[in-house]
């Protein structure tokens, strides 16, 4: 055990900190609005130009080949500097790991650099009106078009985050109509400007147009739009949904920064006499530290070749419920001002999505019980 950062790590941290503190934009509007999105995209390009967009990727795709520990350090510094949520995150954190594992060389060469530069903006197309927590209930279809050498996609995707601002969509489609549930699905990559695609943005809880419905009506895509094998979509999607998702989608840096902001708020408005809120602030600090060190423990295990797996369900529950508690504590500190449409109230509403998306926490608790503890499914 050595919990000191190596000289290399410490130097990497110092570099990141210096650059981020000099460059992180302040006061950006929400990236889930049309105006805000454009400004966020500028920031993404600035990150890319400084090779901070995708630090853990190989250099050939725009990264620095940073280690997992370095990536965690970058994330800590990114949020510490007040960096905004990444509008490119669904591509970088959900699609890219899958491309690395299952993409052809041609796919990697085409998709990854464009994603890193923000040329292509990827939206996820998992959910459908009838398939939320139950992803295997997907109805959207892919029909083989031998003549044209590709596939014709039809159906409806929904709850597509920032779908109205993105250029591409990745998602599962039912390519074998005779197969049931999670069989017979294929993972497709779809340009949103293709003929037959209609995107309708709609508002989420906080009123921002952060969601979209995507309607696909006989949309043609060529064979190279398939990621991984035909009819292998479920295993392709799931292979990178575990550890990677838990780790990369919500790095500890975000919650360390949120806990820091909460401490600042406590100092500025906290009534020293109210020990209940004081205790809640301390709990938030401890929880964020616990999440940080659990991540270091997990990453060490990964780096040493241990498999982790279903533990990502614990991670998802922990960060999402911690995030709600941090924001609820802040609203308590604000007292009557909590009702105002300020950053903590906005953040609270955003936090409330955490226990719902990427598999509800109810589903995640089932996964922990069944796969980590070994309880019977039925």
């Amino acid at each position: 055990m050595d919990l000191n950062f190596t000289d290399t790590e410490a130097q990497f941290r110092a570099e990141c900190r210096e650059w981020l503190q000099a460059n992180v934009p302040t006061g950006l509007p929400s990236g889930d609005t049309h105006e805000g999105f454009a400004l966020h995209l500028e920031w993404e390009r600035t990150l890319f130009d400084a090779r901070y967009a995708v630090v853990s990727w190989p250099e050939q795709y725009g990264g620095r080949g940073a280690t997992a520990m370095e990536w965690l350090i970058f994330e800590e510094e990114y949020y510490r500097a007040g960096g905004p949520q990444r509008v490119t995150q669904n591509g970088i954190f959900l699609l890219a790991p899958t491309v690395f594992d299952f993409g052809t060389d041609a796919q990697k060469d085409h998709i990854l650099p464009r994603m890193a530069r923000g040329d292509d903006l990827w939206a996820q197309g998992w959910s459908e009106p009838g398939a939320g927590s139950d992803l295997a209930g997907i109805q959207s279809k892919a029909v083989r078009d031998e003549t044209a050498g590709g596939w014709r996609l039809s159906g409806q995707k929904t709850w597509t985050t920032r779908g109205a601002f993105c250029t591409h969509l990745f998602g599962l489609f039912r390519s074998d109509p005779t197969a049931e549930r999670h069989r017979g699905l294929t993972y497709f990559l779809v340009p949103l400007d293709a003929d037959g695609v209609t995107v309708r943005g709609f508002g989420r809880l906080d009123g921002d147009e952060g969601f979209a419905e995507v309607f696909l009506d006989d949309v043609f895509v060529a064979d190279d739009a398939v990621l991984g094998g035909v009819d292998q979509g479920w295993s392709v999607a799931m292979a990178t949904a575990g550890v990677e998702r838990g780790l990369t989608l919500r790095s500890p840096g975000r919650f360390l920064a949120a806990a820091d902001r909460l401490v600042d708020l406590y100092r500025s408005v906290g009534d020293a006499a109210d020990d209940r809120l004081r205790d809640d602030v301390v709990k938030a600090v401890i929880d964020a530290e616990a999440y940080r060190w659990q991540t270091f423990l997990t990453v060490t295990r990964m780096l040493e070749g241990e498999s982790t797996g279903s533990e990502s369900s614990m991670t998802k529950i922990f960060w999402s419920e911690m995030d709600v508690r941090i924001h609820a504590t802040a609203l308590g500190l604000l007292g009557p001002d909590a009702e105002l449409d300020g950053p903590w109230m906005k953040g609270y509403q955003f936090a409330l999505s955490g226990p719902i998306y990427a598999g509800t926490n109810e589903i995640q608790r089932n996964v922990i019980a069944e796969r980590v503890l070994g309880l019977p499914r039925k």
Partner: protein
Amino acid sequence: MRFAFTEDQLAFRDAVRDLLANECPPAVVRAAWEGAGRAPGAWSALAEMGVLGAMAPESAGGLGLSVLDLVLLAEEAGYAALPEPFVEHAMVAVPVLPDPAAAAAGEVTATAAIGAPFVPFGADADLVLLDDDDAVVCTARGGFTARPIDGVDASRRLATVTFDEAEIVGDAGALAAAFDRGALGTAAQLIGVTRRMLDLTVDYVKDREQFGVPIGSFQAVKHHLADARIALEFARPLVYRAAWSLATGDPDAAVHVSMGKSLASDAAELTSTKTLQAHGAMGYSFEYDLHLFMKRAWAWAGSWGDAPWHRARVGRAVL
């Protein structure tokens, strides 16, 4: 000991319930978010029915009723998420105004805020009651400046209010009583909006299927909603009992109000979290109605004293 409302009180409640079902469906609440705000149809119908002036004496065109008669009506206003200053007008202002006739008739709309940094419908009301130097003061349109401020529930139309002219309409005792009526009425509205979130969610989870069955058949969803139902069940009696205590001048009425408001705030906040979670992504959509009620619940839970504030007041009395 008989803990039940009279037939008259229940009939009045039913009439208001029907009125609001017709005049204030979710589309009206949604319109108040987006357009000019408020629900003029419902408001004038309530005036006509005598609800807005119910607490004014008959000599001023009122019905001479007490908070005990109004508490069930406030609950219905909560159920509808009525985008009007119902409690502030009918329960806070009317009983303290020296001449409540115009307010009782609904010719003028009053709002109020005591010990709070902003006023619901502050820019829309004709009269604003505020606390100033341990007294209730009333400032009329023309005598005050209201600056709109964005709240999480846009249909509350918050504003900060500063006045040039105001009339003292109540002393320190009247101020304390007005605050308790506001807290009680808001607690009753919270009971109502909690019921509404629960009703909406029960309907949704019976209908929505995942994994081939209604999601309401999953034990986790059942337990979320059972928890909300329990919180509602045990908050409600303390709100009704506080109404009785205020109406009959019980010396501990303020403590009873705080007990009711704290449980009603907690029940509403718990229910908003549980019902949102039971909905999954659907509840997170702006186009779906749940958020209208949820944001109102958040706003009311923090208004007229949040749950910790009221518990602290109970603590000063009982510890």
